[in-house]
């Protein structure tokens, strides 16, 4: 087990290296400097600015400096569009908001998806099953980019129950978290149902029943635990979907999170911010994939970690 984790952690090094190189290369291959303005700056000023930010160095040196700064000082560099802030400041201000949104959405996704999937499987071909599968189809066909505006229209503008946009109070968090979580809950519900249906037909469930365990114990301790295994495998892609979802949902609900800032900096061609954000997200996604794989190995003792 330990060997497996170490091996997976070592595998991260080439992946992160490639991501950083590609990110850096693409960001620097873009023509036009970050100091191109509507009104052209004098050449001397641009030269001075470039010297200040180390842009007069050869590209490989810039890369080494950039990565060195991240590794040694956890410094993601300056923000070109604002002199007083650094990329670290942006992370500090905006990342927690996105994290809150993501965690809430994940809780909603699992909180709706798993019970719905289990219910649908246990009461197959009843109202619960149809409800579960209806929600699943709805969640897959209505992406968050559509769900967000529709929720605003219904609950904020027509019914007036919730505030239209913003962040900070629980009331403002409800709609964005649902807009982000519902799609994932649909996928979880479908998968939980399918794997639950498979598991409850297994012999060991019959054995558990035969030795007189209560139905509850059989379902929770024996069936659900095994039905979770396929569900755990999709948590990785799910994290990725949540991250891209935050870009959209934060934009629609005017939430001051990292995703909204990320989009603004793409439009402004503020490449250190874009690069920092992509590296940060990539690290998060790669780590969460690793965590999912390890959980998977824990859940299913049949998997060999070689």
């Amino acid at each position, binding site marked *: 087990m330990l060997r497996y984790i170490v091996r997976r952690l070592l595998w991260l090094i080439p992946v992160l290296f490639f991501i950083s190189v590609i990110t850096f290369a693409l960001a620097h291959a873009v*023509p036009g400097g970050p100091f191109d303005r509507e009104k052209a700056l004098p050449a001397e000023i641009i030269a001075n600015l470039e010297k200040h930010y180390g842009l007069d160095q050869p590209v490989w040196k810039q890369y080494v400096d950039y990565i060195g700064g991240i590794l040694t000082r956890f410094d993601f560099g300056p923000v070109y569009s604002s002199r007083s802030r650094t990329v670290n400041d942006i992370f500090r201000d905006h990342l927690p908001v996105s994290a809150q949104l993501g965690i809430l959405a994940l809780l909603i996704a699992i909180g709706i998806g798993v019970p719905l999937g289990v219910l649908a499987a246990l009461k197959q071909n009843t109202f619960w099953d149809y409800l579960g599968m209806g929600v699943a189809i709805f969640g897959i066909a209505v992406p968050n980019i559509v769900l*967000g*505006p529709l929720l605003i229209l219904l609950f904020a*503008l027509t019914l007036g129950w919730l505030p239209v946009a913003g962040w900070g109070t629980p009331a403002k968090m409800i709609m964005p978290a649902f807009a982000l979580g519902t799609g994932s809950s649909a996928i979880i519900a479908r998968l939980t149902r399918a794997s639950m249906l498979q598991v409850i037909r297994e012999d060991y469930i019959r054995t558990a029943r035969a030795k007189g365990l209560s139905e509850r114990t059989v379902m929770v301790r024996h069936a659900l635990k095994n039905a979770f295994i396929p569900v755990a495998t999709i948590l990785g892609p799910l994290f990725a979907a949540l991250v891209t979802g935050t870009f959209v949902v934060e934009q629609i609900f005017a939430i001051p999170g990292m995703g909204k800032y990320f*989009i603004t900096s793409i439009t402004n061609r503020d490449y250190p911010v874009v690069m920092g954000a*992509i590296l940060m997200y990539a690290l998060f996604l790669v780590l969460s994939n690793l965590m999912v794989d390890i959980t998977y190995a824990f859940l299913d003792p049949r998997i060999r970690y070689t």
Partner: protein
Amino acid sequence: MTTQELTAREQAALRLSERMGKPANLWLDAWRRLIRNRASVLGGALALLLIMASILAPQVAPYHYAEGDSNEAYTVPNWLIGLLPGNIKAYAKTGDKFLFGSDYLGRDVLSRLIYGTRVSLPVGFMGAFTALAIGLVYGCISGYYGGRVDNIMMRIVDIMYAFPTMLLIILMMAFFKSTFADVSPGTVAYTFNKVNDFVDKLLGLRGGGMLFIFMGIGITAWMGMARLTRGQILSLKEKEFVEAAHMIGAGDMRIIIRHIVPNIMGPCIVAQTLAIPGYINTEVFLSFIGLGVDPPTPSWGTMISEGAQAIRSYPHMVLFPAIALSLTMFAFNFLGDGLRDALDPKMKGTS
């Protein structure tokens, strides 16, 4: 029950006798199974309608997608105003000229939606086609030759797989946008621009930048396909009919193309049909964050983004593109599910 069973058996016998002397046709059987599935017929009809709308866009669309009179901006259609929150009536212009209203430049929302299918559908189909083409070739080589070739090729796929796909597309689009924006003749970028112009002209959307979206999606979409193909080939190449083909002296190319590929086409097409909504969604997402098609080309993502900004005062702008996108998603998901059940009955009910 007995009568039902009998009729079912009779039907089967009838089908069999109709087919007497004719070889079993995989595609015909699949088609029969497909049209028996109500949800997928509905999805297919909807998809067909969308395709027709995109082909006949200049004939169907009442107005031009990029031309509008700013005096007519933010017109809410009369039939909708009653359904919207009450206070909008106080300030909004209403009219019957535009069935779905007009946007912030006075452009007809319906026409933009119709022309928007010329962005969404080609992206979906091209994404599926590129993924199929690259993935099939890559997976065939890797799976068929095995050994060291397989090892190296699959490690490359592993690394690509570990990449967060969406972030890679975002980066590439940002790169394409600025690199190919304005270039002098004779360079590689210039050639790309010419090809892009040609693609845009083919789709009837001037200056849309569609090629770059195709490229962005194509580059990131093939890995799953390559893995699927390889897996299929690994199990197929040990089968007796491949051995028999070897025996009578067929070459590798002939075995792959004539014997193996026809056997794996089903699952591959199914996988890509199910992936089409994903590609459409990717384009919508890219346009939403401002990295997709260039204005004034109407993408549903751009329309939703513009509409979301005006959602408090003029909700109709976001409502229609949102509904159109959802219907498209429904259509292709149902169609994909139906195709899976039809082409690969063994897979029915899984996932």
